[in-house]
C-alpha cells in the first residue's frame, strides 16, 4: 500500500482524473473531498462489507419450497 502524508487543503491525484482533497481534520476524523468523473463509483467501504455479509446470509437459504409455491402475493 502506498502511504502519503497530506495536510489540510492538500490533494492527491489518481490516474490523472480523480482528485482527493483533505478538506478538514477534526480529531481522528478526516473529511475528504473527492472529484471524479461520473462513471467512477465511490462508496464507503462499510457498504460493500455490509452487502457481502447480507449476500452470505442470503446464500444460507432456509426455505420450504412448498411455502413459496403456495404463496399468493398480498400487496396491501
Amino acid at each position, binding site marked *: 500500500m502506498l502511504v502519503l502524508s497530506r495536510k489540510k487543503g492538500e490533494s492527491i491525484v489518481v490516474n490523472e482524473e480523480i482528485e482527493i482533497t483533505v478538506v478538514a481534520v477534526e480529531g481522528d476524523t478526516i473529511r475528504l473531498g473527492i472529484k471524479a468523473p461520473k462513471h467512477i463509483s465511490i462508496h464507503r467501504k462499510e457498504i460493500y462489507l455490509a452487502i457481502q455479509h447480507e*449476500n452470505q446470509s442470503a446464500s444460507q437459504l432456509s426455505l420450504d419450497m412448498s411455502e*413459496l409455491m403456495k404463496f*399468493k*402475493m398480498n400487496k396491501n
Partner: protein
Amino acid sequence: MYREDKMKINTERFGEIEVIEEDILTFSKGILGFESYKRFALINTEGGENSFYFLQSLEEEALCFLMLNTFSLFPDYQIELDETTIEQLEIQNPQDVIILTVITVVKSLQDATTNLQAPIIINVARKLGKQIVNDKGNYLIKQPLFSKGHITEAEGQRG
C-alpha cells in the same frame, strides 16, 4: 431449424435440472462476496405470481439465491444506472433490463427481507448481470418483504 440448447446442471436444492442456454447469465464481476462465481442460471419459481426467481450457480451446486422481481413488490423503487454499468452490461434498450433483489430467508417467507440497497441488474438481451450499489433513496439492506407500508423507508432523500 431452431433448437433450444439445453444443459444439465447439478444443484443441491433441486438435484439435477435442465436449463436452456437462454436462462444462463454471466456475472463478470460476480456477486459481492462471491466474486469467483461467474455463471448462474435464472430459474423462474412459478411461485407468487412470477415474482420470485432462483439464481443458481453453475459452478457451485450449493450456491443458490432466492431473488425478488423488485418492481412486483416495490413498484415505486427507484434506481439510476451509471455509465460504467450500462457499458459493462452492454445495455442498449431500457426494456432489456430487469431488476432483481436478493432475498434473505431466515425462518419463513413471511419474515423474509430483501436487499434494496444492492440490486442485481440483468440485461436479458446480452445475458449479463451485475450487483450494484443503489445510491438513490435510503434503501435498506434488510427491507422486510411483507410488512405494511413497506415503501415508507424507501422514500427518503433523493440524489
